[in-house]
């Protein structure tokens, strides 16, 4: 038997495009607005969610038959909170500056709708391997959008990518800035992320007619 059956592959690939947690299910928007002003923060956030959702889905899936359904939300919260604290401590230990940039938003992974949504909708009813794939797929789908939004916001808002000045120096007026170009302050503020996400949804729906809702 192959490592990944066709169904397993679709668990990973569907959330990347046609069932994307951000652009189709419109979950996890708050963090997508808050931390995407820099590409680096977006990438770290994506990796953090990848870890929390991948491991969390497996843990919940393993415990799915012994969790009393009345207190399942509390159990899920304990699992996700434990994982988030691990991520937070690791960031503080090895990437202190970045953890300050992300500030409360690492802690707020607990409230990310995608994570509770996958626990409830998938991990409680499926085996550990498939839950793991589902968690990885959804976290990747979330991460891809985060990175696209972070790329455009950092490029146009600050003229940098990963902190590297790709468009020249705005103070000494080198590169593109010599021609009179200026950074777009609008891209720095969170509403710009909403508009970038909106444009991604627009492009995605105009490419894939199946996603257009009838009304």
């Amino acid at each position, binding site marked *: 038997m192959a490592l990944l059956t066709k169904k397993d592959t679709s668990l990973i690939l569907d959330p990347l495009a046609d069932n994307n947690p951000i652009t189709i299910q419109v979950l996890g928007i708050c963090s997508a607005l808050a931390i995407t002003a820099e590409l680096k923060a977006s990438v770290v956030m994506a990796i953090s969610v990848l870890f929390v959702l991948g491991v969390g889905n497996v843990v919940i899936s393993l415990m799915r038959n012994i969790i009393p359904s009345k207190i399942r939300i509390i159990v899920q919260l304990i699992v996700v909170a434990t994982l988030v604290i691990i991520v937070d401590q690791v960031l503080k230990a090895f990437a202190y500056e970045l953890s300050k940039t992300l500030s409360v938003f690492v802690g707020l992974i607990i409230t990310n709708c995608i994570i509770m949504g996958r626990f409830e909708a998938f991990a409680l009813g499926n085996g550990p391997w498939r839950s793991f794939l589902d968690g990885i797929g959804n976290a990747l789908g979330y991460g891809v959008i985060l990175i696209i939004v972070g790329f455009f916001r950092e490029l146009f808002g600050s003229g940098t990518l990963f902190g590297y000045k790709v468009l020249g120096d705005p103070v000494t007026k080198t590169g593109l800035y010599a021609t*009179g170009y*200026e950074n*777009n*302050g*609008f*891209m720095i*503020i969170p509403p710009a992320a909403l*508009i970038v996400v*909106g444009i991604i949804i*627009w492009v995605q729906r105009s490419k894939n007619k199946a996603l257009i809702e009838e009304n």
Partner: protein
Amino acid sequence: MSDKKLTLKKRLHILKHRFRGKKMAPAFNAIHTFLFAPDETTHSGSHIRVADDLKRTMNTVIMALIPVLVFSFFNTGYQHYSAINGFPDNFSLVNDFLNWDNFWLGFIKVMPLVIVSYGVGLLIEFIFAVIKGHEVEEGYLVTGMLVPLIVPIDTPLWMLAVAVVFGVVIGKEVFGGTGMNILNPALTIRAFLFFAYPTWMSGDKVWVQGAVERAGTPDAISGETVLGYLAQNKGDEMAYTVSDMFFGFIPGSVGETSVLLILLGGLFLVFTKIASWRIMVSAVIGALVMGLIFNGVVEAGWIGQSSGFYGLMSFEFWKHLLVGGLAFGIVYMATDPVTGSQTNRGKWIYGFFIGFISVMIRVFNPAYPEGVFLAILLMNVFAPTIDHYVVRGNIRRRLNRLKNATVLPTNSGEEAKELKVETI
């Protein structure tokens, strides 16, 4: 004229028929309808006969804007030369203001803004017409003229182009194009510019032509707006008189300064029934009420001279109408028939809050002493809600009238009896 010699109109007509059904058809139709009256006739029975189609409505607004535009040529030059040479002691309208130097400087500085605004905006309209396969929409005609009039004179052209792309696509086309937009596209463009490039939109360097490029040199000039002075509590240093403010000999966005010409344009629009007088009147009332409240607060002694709000709060309430973009916003922006309220009662509420909130933002906004565009955009968002409740209220009132109606006796002996709504 021989048949072989084709006029432009004929050529476009032929092209239009040749491209019918093709992807490029809307682009040719667009040029055709822009230059000539459309040659189509209604095929089915026509139910409404009116002389003013969308294009004529738009053209009327542009006609009302032309005096403002021409005045802005003179004022741009006047502010520039006055900032360099000092304001003339005995101001004479003909010699100091309406002269060729002023006009020419203003002309070569303002016209590029107009051209970029129209060029970029119409290009986007064309592209979307081709993509959607619709007829081109004339909606940009007015927006394209409003945009250069509400930006500072030295706005770099590429910034304006970026903002126009954003405003037309995000402000209008994503909602379905002309007539479907929630927000006024011209103000969306202004708001984008303000949040994206704040250093080019506020301060004392942007309102006078040439001030930005001269900054830091011995020839540096600056021109603070009236509201700018007041926001810094420097109202007594300001040299502008009330008549300067009314006639528009003050620094400001390109076309917003002359209240007199805006007033004339507004009267023209009301007379031609293009714009709603209810919105204009109620917005003026709203601004006056808010100004009176602030003046009252100052008179009651709740705000001292040291307060950061003192300058704007103590500004006489009626003068708020003369400065900044309030007059321009009320006459040309708030009355946009697409984004404003549709019901008569709704127009009163909508207009009142535009004036009220404009003056409020003026006083309390720490970053920028003007808030007309924010107030109008905010009320644009609320306009459908206002209309909804006005219509609901009307239905309820009529239902009540029906419930409480009494049937008058036909014979003198009978008593009046209540009409039951269930029986109808």
